[in-house]
């Protein structure tokens, strides 16, 4: 499998990364290089082997259901670009 320039610009758009045409070409070559490594991995026979979701073979630790966080709104909003009436303001989101 290899990626086209169109694939690269689509991925960039999904990730909200702006790339120039020159960067797109370089990125395509790098991504294709990574994919060729993956192709080698895919050549290994994995019949009967359960997919691995995590590199470490341990299970999720659980937290008791208790409210442990207090209100730090003022501190968080002190570093926000813009706030009003307790809300974070962001460029208009239109559905």
């Amino acid at each position, binding site marked *: 499998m290899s990626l086209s320039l169109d694939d690269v610009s689509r991925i960039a758009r999904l990730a909200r990364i702006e790339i120039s045409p020159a960067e797109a070409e370089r990125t395509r070559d790098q991504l294709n290089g990574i994919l060729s490594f993956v192709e080698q991995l895919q050549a290994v026979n994995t019949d009967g082997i359960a997919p691995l*979701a995590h590199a470490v073979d341990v299970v999720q630790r659980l937290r008791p259901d208790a409210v442990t*966080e207090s209100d730090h709104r003022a501190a968080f909003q002190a570093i926000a670009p813009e706030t009003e009436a307790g809300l974070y303001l962001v460029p208009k989101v239109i559905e």
Partner: protein
Amino acid sequence: MTWEVVIGLETHAQLQTKSKIFSGASVAFGAEPNRQACAVDIALPGVLPVLNREAVVCAIRFGLAVGAEIAPRSIFARKNYFYPDLPKGYQISQFETPVVLGGGLTIHVGEHEKFVHLTRAHLEEDAGKSLHEDFHGKTGIDLNRAGTPLLEIVTEPDMCSSAEAVAYAKALHSLVTWIGICDGNMQEGSFRCDANVSVRRPGAPLGTRREIKNLNSFRFLQQAIDYEIQWQINEIEEGRKIQQATVLFDPDTGETRSMRSKEDAHDYRYFPDPDLLPLEIRPEWIAEVKAGMPELPQALQHRFQSAYGLSAYDSATLAATRDTASYYENTVLAAGSANAKLCANWVMGEVSARVNRDGLDIAAIPLAPPLLAGMVQRVADGTLSSKLAKEVFEALWNGEGKDADAIIEARGLKQVSDASAIEPLIDEVLAANQKSVEEFRAGKDKAFNALVGQIMKASKGKANPQQVNDLLRKKLSG
């Protein structure tokens, strides 16, 4: 030309926990904006999610209640999308290996019964809220809801009308509140449905579906689906093709309209979240949760039918909520199971009417089950006629008198079943109504009823009507 409708539902049920699914912030409704959004919820760098045990318990309870398989190992995944209501840039959800697999719910539409299969149910976090009021052309973001635990419950495309979809949604709503995993408050968004709708010719392959998002009332669910079905049929009959889309329902116009969304909005690029390890649920844990489960609505309905001889309809009505069922059952326990049907009539009739009229919580009404039971017993043993019983009920409801017997005594409402007390009344009435007596003897049955009415009136409604009937008939034929 007929059309077949195919509907599948996805429901988001907010789980009744105290804290968020991956952080220790509170999930209480109605706080000031961003006062319940901690570093994890606003996605500051370096934070790590830690799974709330209670959210998993809720998922297990649900899985047990719908007869599903509970995955011994399930995986959390990142669903990538850029929207300021989830500042991480992804939602933590489950994709390939959800916590609950399969199962289903039986629904009733009129006389018709149907089993709706569930595909899956998975745990995920809710997003924050975007406020589009005027903030100088900007959008205001409240992240209090971000990270609230949700169980997304997905059906197979098993429903074929809006009525079935609503019946399913109601059955599911009743179940999740019954087992105590969701408060079911639709206005606050604790229980919201997305409906996938498509139409096809009978026997044809599935049509292209459109998804109606965020329906937060049963009425909107019905209206939106009905509108959407008609819209799709019109499009196809006019020669156009249905494009897969996400649509919103506008309650003001009663129409669905396509959301302006980019073609790649659905490219979520799921992958396992490296911040969370696999969730392991051992059989011992499932057994422990199972031991704490209440009797489920369906089992209870069957028990009401077999133990108390109630009809399927009465059983379903009484088992609509856990509180109604327990009110009924406590009444029967106090009144005796021989009076189960009579108790059912009073609970479904007078009690429910007043609870609904005044918007009360049946678990907290002053008319406690033993008081109602005491009155029902006086109806059953003939002390009270049904007419007088209503008067006693009204008095009990208003807290006048300590119990039914005290009210009957104080107001002299006791039904008269004593022949020696009724006979003089009959003689009196017969003497005063010779015309009716002659008419009856001439074969006019109506005259008999007129006489009974007169006698009841003479007794001020207290004579036992059955007794009056018997005695009168005996006298007239004698």
